[in-house]
């Protein structure tokens, strides 16, 4: 049986409009005809020990500029201590059309939650 793999992009944008390929920043004449900057996803760690969390996306010509733009756009109110950026085209997303088979089967399996145990108070939050 042949299996066809189709890549889905972040935000489920169809491939031809996906980030990282051909984004024209809002019709701005000052950018000239070469105004095509790739899209980047930004992840910010709010403090040491926590995870990097996705905060949004932005346009930049390269990784260095993406980090600096992210610093200026997403950490100007002390939101972070560390930034990751990745070009949006490198993110593969699940297909929203397959949400039924992928996620709904988990809905009636409440026994997968660890709520059927009596935890000693000393354990605290798990």
């Amino acid at each position: 049986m042949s299996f066809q793999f189709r890549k889905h992009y972040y935000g489920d944008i169809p491939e031809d409009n996906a980030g990282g390929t051909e984004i024209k920043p809002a019709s701005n004449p000052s950018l000239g005809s070469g105004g095509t900057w790739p899209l980047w996803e930004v992840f910010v760690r709010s403090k040491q020990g926590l995870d990097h969390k996705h905060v949004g996306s932005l346009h930049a010509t390269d990784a260095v500029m993406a980090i600096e733009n992210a610093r200026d756009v997403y950490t100007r109110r002390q939101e972070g201590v560390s930034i990751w950026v990745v070009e949006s085209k490198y993110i593969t997303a699940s297909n929203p059309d397959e949400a039924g088979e992928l996620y709904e089967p988990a809905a009636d399996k409440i026994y997968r939650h660890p709520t059927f145990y009596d935890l000693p108070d000393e354990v605290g939050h798990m």
Partner: protein
Amino acid sequence: MNPSLINYTLHLADNALILAQRNAEWCGHGPILEQDIAITNISLDLLGQSRNFYQYAAQLINDSKIPGSSTAPAPGGEGVGGEASEDSLAYLRTEREFKNCLLVEQPNGDWAQTILRQFLVSAWQYLLYEKLVHNSDEQIAAIAAKSLKEVTYHQRWSSEWVIRLGDGTAESHERMLKAIDELWQYTGELFIAADYETAAGFDTASLKDSWLKKVTAVFEEATLPVPEKVFMQTGGKQGVHTEYMGYILADLQYLQRTYPGASW
């Protein structure tokens, strides 16, 4: 009280304020959203630096008026009741009383000119603050230390842009050349000491070699020439400004001049 220290502090404050005002003109007009935010962030950093210097200058001015102490020549900008404040110094001094360098008041031009102006100033400010951190005046040293981190980023950001545009397309290279042609003549003044700088014990000329080294390194990477034998304009430090300064102040001071004491 030391009038040279007051004037020197005002000089530092004015440089930061006028460049902040110029960069703020980009607000809402940046070439792309992310860079619009970047340049206005830099504007706000500079505004913060100017406030720190103005507050200190105001304190020095007011202290110098205590009966019994030597009377300093009035630097202008007295507010309500003859008391100086950060606001009165920014909003109520005249063009001749501003001591900023000519370079910071030059027009934004295109993005290349704004970038180059920022780079030339930041490279100089970086070296300046780095020295001022060790200044014998504790307040100046503290403000410099706080500002140095911001300026380190300004220098990094603007030098990357100089390289990106200089070594970019034929169009961007051409625009950088034009910007150099426009701005280079105002760089000499940065290293020519005004009387109050010398009196305040600061060796302005000592920064020149390191500055030129930094600029040359970035220009080389950007495939841009470092101009030689250019006639250097001076006067800003003494209050003799280019024709743009009056318009900047008109914009900046209009509200306080028209509605004195207005606040919201």
